[in-house]
């Protein structure tokens, strides 16, 4: 097979029309802001699950903390009539993601599960994806991180430890999705059942504010939750087509 044939073959295989429209699964999340208490359990769970480094006091002060999911706080109104709003912010797994087009080496791309994936080994660290991302959820490894003994014992063996100069972000716990898909395959089942896979943040949320599932299945919990009249998506006007849907907090009048 000549080089040219191989190339055109590959081209046909990977550039089939509809690649970006037809996903095998379409993982999505809803976040009910009415239930969210801002307890940051999701932040901690994510830290433990995904081998996020503890950057230390100095780096934190410099604005270099690593939080794939963070709780944004917004104050509304003037004292004394003031309200505090929480909104958990994580990678929105946009279906037309600005970060994917800008990466010169295709280190971030859309996979067949509708996920916006990040390939650490391919990343050269131009940080352009972080600039292009309107949600500011991409985090850069400004230097190598250390886990002082015995903390290195609790690193998750299913997740890479990233080196300096690499971008990282929320993956919807892709290692758990992969595992669930493997189990489904081993069982001879065709698809992953609803609720079979949960990212660490969803699993941990004490208020059940976070719901995760396959959007392609109309009966899944996440699909039903997305049809809630309170549903909205952050910065929808930018047409990034996010997979994370927020359910608005409704204040009692009076």
């Amino acid at each position, binding site marked *: 097979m000549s*080089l040219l044939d191989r190339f055109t073959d*590959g081209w046909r295989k990977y550039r089939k029309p509809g690649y970006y429209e037809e996903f095998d699964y379409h993982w999505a999340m809803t976040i009910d802001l009415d239930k969210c208490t801002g307890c940051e359990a999701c932040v901690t769970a994510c830290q433990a699950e995904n081998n996020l480094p503890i950057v230390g006091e100095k780096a934190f002060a*410099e604005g270099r903390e690593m939080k794939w999911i963070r709780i944004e706080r917004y104050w509304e109104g003037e004292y004394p009539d003031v309200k505090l709003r929480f909104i958990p912010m994580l990678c929105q797994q946009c279906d037309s993601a600005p970060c994917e087009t800008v990466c010169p080496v295709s280190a971030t791309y859309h996979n067949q599960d509708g996920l916006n994936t990040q390939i650490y080994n391919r990343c050269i660290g131009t940080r352009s994806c972080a*600039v*292009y991302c309107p949600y500011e959820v991409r985090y850069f490894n400004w*230097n190598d991180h250390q886990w002082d003994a015995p903390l290195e014992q609790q690193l998750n063996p299913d997740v890479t430890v990233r080196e300096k100069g690499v971008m990282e972000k929320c993956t919807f716990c892709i290692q758990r999705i992969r595992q669930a898909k493997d189990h489904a395959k081993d069982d001879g089942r065709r698809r992953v059942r609803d609720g079979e896979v949960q990212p660490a943040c969803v699993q941990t949320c004490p208020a059940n504010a976070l719901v995760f599932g396959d959007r392609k299945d109309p009966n899944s919990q996440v699909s039903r939750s997305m049809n809630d009249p309170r549903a909205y998506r952050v910065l929808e006007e930018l047409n990034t087509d996010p997979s994370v849907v927020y359910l608005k907090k409704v204040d009692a009048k009076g």
Partner: protein
Amino acid sequence: MPTETNDLQYADVHRDVIRSIVETGPQYYIALGTAFGVTLLCFFFPWSYQLYYGIGAAGMNHPGVWGTYLASFIFWIGLSHSGTLLSCVLHLTHSTWRKAMYRSAEAMTLFSLMVAATFVMVHVGRPWFIHWALPYPNQMEMWPNFRSPLLFDVMAIGTYITGSSIFIYMGSIPDFAAVRDRTTGWRNNMYALLSMGWRGTDREWHRLHWAYTFLAVLIIPLAVSVHSIVSWDFAMSIVPALHQTIFAPYFVVGAIYSGTAGIVTVMFVLRKYMDFGQYITKVHFDNLGKLLLVLSLIWTYINGIELFTGWFSGASSEHEALRYKLFGYYAPLYWEMIAFCAVAPLLCISSRFRTSFVPMLILSIAINIGMYTERFLIVGTSLSRQYLPDAWGVYVPSLVEISIIVGSLALFVTLFLVFVKIVPSVSMYEVKETMDAPKPEPVASPEGSPA
């Protein structure tokens, strides 16, 4: 042509220019040594530290993930612009005043591009994998991402650096031959190689002119496209205040503007320290001053448009970005830029100002400081104020970054100093074209024949 060169003979041109190559005083070695030392100390040393420690050695953070390295990259690409572009335009319009200065201007292009390319390496997190951004067949069967404006950038700069090095080399061939004919020893061998057996026949001259004009025509659109593409790195994003259609012309004009100012600086230095006073004259400063005036007006206009469209959009994010730029943390830098790049160049209205060397030098340096600020602000202010207020932040360059910026200047000077000793920094044959042919009386002179 200016009357000042009229009393020069062909032989004088050769003598003066070749002297600048062959005769090297202690002053030159001191300058070269200093420049090289500063390069090592301020550029390569902090860079090695950064390679070892990670990009965290610089002051960047979230959300300011782009910083002075990228600003410096744009700055050097911009500075590269006037050289070859100006030289090409003036060549095609048959402007005789170009001839004495274009060689050094083109060299400036080449070295600025090299420094800019180095800044790409300094900027990225893992420069040891930078070749992945190039399209080459590899065992991973991976192409770079052809949709990425950054990849367009790699292509554009690669093409531009190739084009302008061929352009400067081809224009120098007859001069290499002239030096070859007047030197001995290793220099003679080197220039014999560089001149590629140039004999100065009619056919060779004819071909050279044809090819030179061809390249000049080719390089002009290339120069425009390069900086448009650099601007797309920003304009293709959806960051408020960066996502603007005006960015391509804005960057092109800014590039030519800072490049022209850079040429004024370099010409002043050449005139003062290389004894080229008879070749680089008031006429050059006068013309470049006029050019600077026009460019500053266009640049100011585009800046106004940028503010207007931001305000006119009515988007709260754009309004916040504008407010932050004009009155926020970086506002003093913004107004410094306006003072240096929009107000100060208006002095060029006066012809007395344009023809005074020292004031022009000060102005040209001020313009480039202002233009550097502009590039910093494009990166700094826009990233500090994006859509989600929770992710707002401030970015301040670290000592490592400042040192590398200073060091890059020294790197540029080092390259330039090496250049002036290898390549004739004034184009001898083109300067001679502007002069009267030698008078027939001194028949005996063997030096009078053209190269």
